């Protein structure tokens, strides 16, 4: 018990809690819920996303693309043949440029961004609610 107290105290003093990871996971959850229409979306990630790994209670983490509502894409290698037709969502801006992801949540220019491409959402028959409209753009 003392050991855990020490870790918590040190963690708080030295590093702060993992509040950023908790918030990042909440943002992914808000997006995943909107895209899938489910309160507990099934997520597949071939390259681990640390925030979802740490704070996974809102998600059902699955082991294959076939079972997933949403596939999280960090690198090109994450998109296997099985995954190609699934609903892909990126964790980097480059996935939007090079892969058929419907959108991405990423850091760029020193700030976090959320971006969806209208045509790709349409292809998957997804209509986002009003509060997501400001994050939708036309593909360049």
């Amino acid at each position, binding site marked *: 018990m003392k050991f855990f107290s020490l870790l918590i105290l040190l963690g708080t003093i030295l590093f702060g809690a993992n509040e950023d990871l908790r918030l990042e996971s909440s943002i992914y959850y808000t997006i995943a819920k909107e895209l899938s229409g489910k309160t507990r979306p099934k997520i597949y990630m071939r390259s681990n996303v640390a925030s979802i790994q740490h704070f996974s209670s809102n998600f059902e983490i699955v082991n294959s693309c076939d079972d997933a509502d949403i596939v999280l894409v960090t690198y090109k290698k994450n998109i296997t043949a099985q995954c190609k037709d699934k609903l892909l969502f990126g964790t980097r801006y480059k996935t939007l440029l090079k892969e058929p992801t419907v959108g991405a949540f990423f850091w760029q220019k*020193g700030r976090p961004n959320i971006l969806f491409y209208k045509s790709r959402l349409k292809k998957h028959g997804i209509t986002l609610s009003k509060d997501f409209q400001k994050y939708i753009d036309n593909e360049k």
Partner: protein
Amino acid sequence: MRFYLFFLLTSLVTSLAAESLDTLLNEYKSESELSKKTKDENAGNLIVYTRNDLERMQVESLKDLLKSQRFFRYFENREGEPDLLNADPLSYSSKSIKIYLNNTELTNPIAGTGIILFGNIAMDFIDHVEIYQGFPSFEFAIEPALVVIKLYTKSPKKDAGCRIKALVGTNGSNKENIYTADVTENNVGYFLYANHEDDNRYKRSAEDKTFKRDVHTNHFYASFEKEATKLELNALKIKRDEFLGALPYTPPLSDEKEQSYFNATLSTKLLSDNSLSLHADYLRTSGDYKATYSPAVPALYGGFSTFEQPYDAQALTLLAKKEYHFVKHSLSLGLQFRHKLFDLDNIKRDGIEDTTSQAYTSEDIYSLFMEDSYAVTDNDLLSFSLMQQFYKRNKKMKDESPQQLRLGYIKSLQHFTAKTFLNRQQLVPEPYMTAEAHIGNPDLDPETYTGGTQEFSYKTTKHFARMTLGYTQIKDFLLSDTNAVIQNSHKALNTYAGALEYKYYFRESDELHLEANILKLEGSDIAMDSTHFNYVFRMLNNFSKLNIFNELVINKGYRNNQTGYDYSLGAKYALTQDLKIAFKGENVFNKGLKRDYLYTIFPTAKSLAVPVIEQKFMLSMEYLF
């Protein structure tokens, strides 16, 4: 009516949801500040400038932060080089202030600190700054320090993209820089930065001579990282006018110094829990000081008309640190090694090389340290640090084996924190004080610092208050005698420090910062006794796309200085999210602190009062893409 109510309800729910995603993003950005990951409250009395602070304060160079520090402040020596504790007309005084770029100490092995090179570095590639005062943790420093300034660079992941920036200012000053960053498909993150700056200042005149202190800088930094392994390259070239020059015998007709610096760092973390840290860095710095005198230097001091002093120094640093977590303890064990090579001979007067030679040319420093943090309860942390060092020198120079001791106690409650640190440290004189053949003294003993600091702070969402008290006794304090040769003082120097700080966060992004601090020096052999006061009033305001910065720094009681009122202001407007323009004025009314510099001591001493921070107005633009 029902339709109207439905519409109202839908709008309300929608706006709340939208706000929640926006709010989440804002909170996430705030909580992701890198400073929250790197700062170590247990490592000393800490002041953090987050990325947001640096942007809103329009921090262009490091002096913009250092000029308003508690207890010490930004000064330059008679050569126009940054020297924060500048107290002596000839000797360099800031050896006990160490500066780091990420985890690499930026140092000049001869001066014992990198402040002389990097004390006023352009900050465009820096994410955040941590300043640890009061004998910080041994984990930072191979050599012990009074103050550690840690500069952290922007990150490849968060700053993916490019930024260009251009600045023009008073006297034709200008600065242009670019950085680019990204993470590749192979998960290799890179950050590349290049900067050119001409910092042109007002000229001063005395006895028909004009003194300039313009500084021209080219700086390049690159980092490449994959998982826990990181390679960093850092290169700097400085060409500066040397203002009143190295010698006070007569004012120079002209003088300049060219300096170059390069370092490469490789660091990694091993084992499944990353508990073994390894670090290696190599640095080389060289420079050449040249001065001409007309009329010549008085015969009493050599009668020469030209003076040249080149230097060359290298250092290799190796560090290994292992962390252990036991039931109640968090223990760090470290082994540090630094090999220094330096050449500061080859002084030429009228082209004739000096025949004297430096007392030693290399130094090996071995440091063994352990730091243990012990959780007494969930709110109480005790820490104990011990370092044993060995300084091995070549030629006939004596070796040293100083010990460093540090005790800490932190009480941490929901809003209240108290920190107590007690220290006994021995600072070994640096090569310019011992090896140099003219002002150096190979018989110098290490200075012994004994003291402590006590800090209380209280924080809520709207308020932050902090009180810091400190006392240090310095035995064998180093100072120059009447022949400019450095000696150990026979009397101890006592320092008493006290600071009060208050921050009020009114509205969401507005901040008022008030601070008053005092430092009293007492008891050394020479007339160093003084009591100086610093007061800081700072206001940061945000009105939609406009950020406004106001700051008044009052300095009073410094020896050889008049009371200064340095008022700075800035306004930054975001034309778009990616395009910003800014205006900034420093020492706007030209009433800031002035420093008296001796420009001659023959036949009588005469001095010149010069603003420490020049009056300067700047206009800048930055674009992200």
